[in-house]
């Protein structure tokens, strides 16, 4: 990390480097294609920084272990793919409820079920939002390049520590396994966030009393505060209170709002050629790269086309998209699923505007030609 020179690495390897740079000290995981290089890389790197790696007996255990590791004070992370992500959902909900910072990387593959291992997919967008039961906060980021995988891994870790919530990094197999020549930032160029600590008042610590920013300061186990953590609905003391609707409702709303009300801080996206655009492609992950080529080809044909690349998928930036898309005639949404995010974007436009999805669920990439064809069809 000290020398700034180009290196040819995979997205999954960039994720490992970012995890170490952002201070991950504990990884628990269970091997699953196409995410395994992340576990393998961290098995090698963590002991070098006095961190610990464990290969657990399954994905459920891995998710439980990183919650335990985080409560004990270690920045913690796991990595998986579709079926494993499904298994993690119950404990992901626990992390949201108990406000335990941790990061879950999901290098997506085709589904449902064991689906199409090793083949690319963007099929877990909705699972990242609604996979666990009940209303809960969701932060999910989606890189479109190897360098962005590094940046968004650091950001996922930072956001989880800042907001005391699990953060999901949705990589697709194309980005996870693609090698690109990248120059990574040096350690001193990175902003690393540490969890907010309580004042040293051991006897009066209320582990779930939030500050004005809706986030409670977090003590680690072993620092002298004796407190209770549970997945049950709880009051500021951390103990269950199921008799008081205000406590149950207030907690759920605070958990969701600490994320939803901070969209300005959490949402990241980029735009290209929007000024005069009549057609705008909204894309994320590897499909955003295809979309950039399609945009250029459409421009060559004289169709004023722009591109919005979403890096934050959840919380969904509907206000931003509503504003950016308000004068656009047609919105094109390429996705390696049957339109999971298209539905969200539909809420950001009005009835006079067209929205068209370009979708594949056959394990093949979306080509620029397919997106171009959709654009030309809409414009003719």
């Amino acid at each position, binding site marked *: 990390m000290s020398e700034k020179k180009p290196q040819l690495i995979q997205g999954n390897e960039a994720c490992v480097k970012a995890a170490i740079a952002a201070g991950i000290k504990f990884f628990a995981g269970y091997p699953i294609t196409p995410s395994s290089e992340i576990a393998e890389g961290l098995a090698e790197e963590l002991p*070098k920084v006095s961190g610990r790696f464990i290969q657990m*007996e399954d994905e459920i255990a891995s998710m439980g*272990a990183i919650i335990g590791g985080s409560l004990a004070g270690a920045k913690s992370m796991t990595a998986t793919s579709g079926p494993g992500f499904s298994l993690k959902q*119950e404990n992901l909900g626990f992390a949201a409820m108990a406000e335990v910072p941790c990061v879950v990387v999901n290098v997506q593959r085709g589904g449902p079920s064991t689906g199409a291992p090793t083949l690319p997919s963007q099929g877990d967008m909705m699972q990242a939002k609604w996979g666990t039961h009940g209303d809960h906060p969701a932060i999910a980021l989606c890189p479109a390049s190897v360098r962005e995988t590094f940046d968004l891994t650091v950001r996922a870790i930072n956001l989880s520590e800042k907001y005391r919530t699990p953060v999901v990094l949705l990589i697709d197999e194309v980005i996870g396994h693609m090698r690109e020549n990248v120059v990574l930032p040096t350690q001193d160029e990175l902003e690393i966030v540490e969890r907010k600590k309580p004042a040293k008042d051991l006897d009066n610590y209320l582990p779930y009393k939030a500050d004005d920013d809706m986030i409670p300061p977090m003590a680690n186990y072993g620092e002298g505060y*004796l407190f209770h953590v549970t997945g049950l609905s709880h009051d500021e003391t951390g103990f269950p209170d199921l008799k008081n609707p205000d406590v149950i409702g207030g907690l759920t709303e605070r958990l969701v709002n600490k994320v939803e009300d901070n969209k300005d801080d959490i949402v990241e996206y980029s735009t290209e050629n929007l000024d005069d655009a009549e057609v705008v492609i909204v894309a994320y992950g590897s499909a955003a790269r295809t979309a950039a080529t399609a945009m250029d080809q459409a421009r060559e044909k004289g169709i004023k086309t722009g591109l919005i690349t979403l890096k934050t998928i959840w919380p969904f930036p509907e206000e931003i998209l509503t504003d950016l898309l308000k004068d656009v005639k047609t919105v094109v949404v390429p996705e390696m699923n049957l339109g999971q995010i298209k539905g969200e974007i539909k809420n950001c436009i009005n009835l006079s505007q067209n929205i068209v999805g370009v979708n594949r669920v056959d394990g093949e990439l979306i080509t620029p030609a397919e997106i171009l064809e959709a654009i030309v069809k809409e414009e003719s």
Partner: protein
Amino acid sequence: MAVHLRKYLRLNKLPHIWCPGCGHGIILNSLIRAIDEVGLDQEKTVVVSGIGCSSRATGYLNFNTLHTTHGRAMAFATGVKLGNPDLNVIVLSGDGDSAAIGGNHLIHAARRNIDITTVVFNNNIYGMTSGQYSPLTPKGAYGTTAPYGNVDQAFDLCDLMISSGASYVGRGATYHAKQLTTLITSALDHKGFSFVEGISQCPTYYGRRNNLKTAVDMLQWQKDVTIKKKAAEKLSPEEQQEKIMIGELHKVADRPEYVEEYEKVIEKVSKKEGTTG
């Protein structure tokens, strides 16, 4: 309750919610006496539980406590121990929590010989959900989901733990409360994965359905059926079948402990890094 033990309890959370006659309070009592005996640092001790009657114990204990998802206490506890190996980690679990949904985590924690002490509150039934049969309900016994008698074979968790690699295994019973305290004390003192099964009584959901109507009946049953390991060895295999062996069943001092083994990896890697610059 000796006054000096009160610091281990969250007195404002008492009285507990366990049913009249339940044995879980006796195990909790044995646990805090054992913690006191060993002299564990209260601030450096984390108690982890899953879901079920037994798992409510963490709420009453004045430590760093973690009440997790059903069956997963061991997985969370493994993370706590690796997140900060200086912490003493204790898992409290029930027979359903540890042997059914959590069975895989239990055997793998034993296999790793990770330095965690586990106490299973075995009342032979799912109490929190009102009396369904568990993997430890004896064959033929009745439960709400075994209205004609349980068809399943019951686990012997201690045998399972010994064969999985736990380096300390003991079994006690609430009838023999002092011995139970001694067993948990030894388990806490032991480096490596230590496991104590505490046979507990559930008169409400197990006893009443199985012709042991009161807590006293159930304790009498414990007295009749339990036998010390040494005495059991004198019995024929058939006679042994009728009895439940209690006491220290297994102890190995020289099995490598997981966290220490991983520390060796860290040392090895940092040396290598040091020499190669």
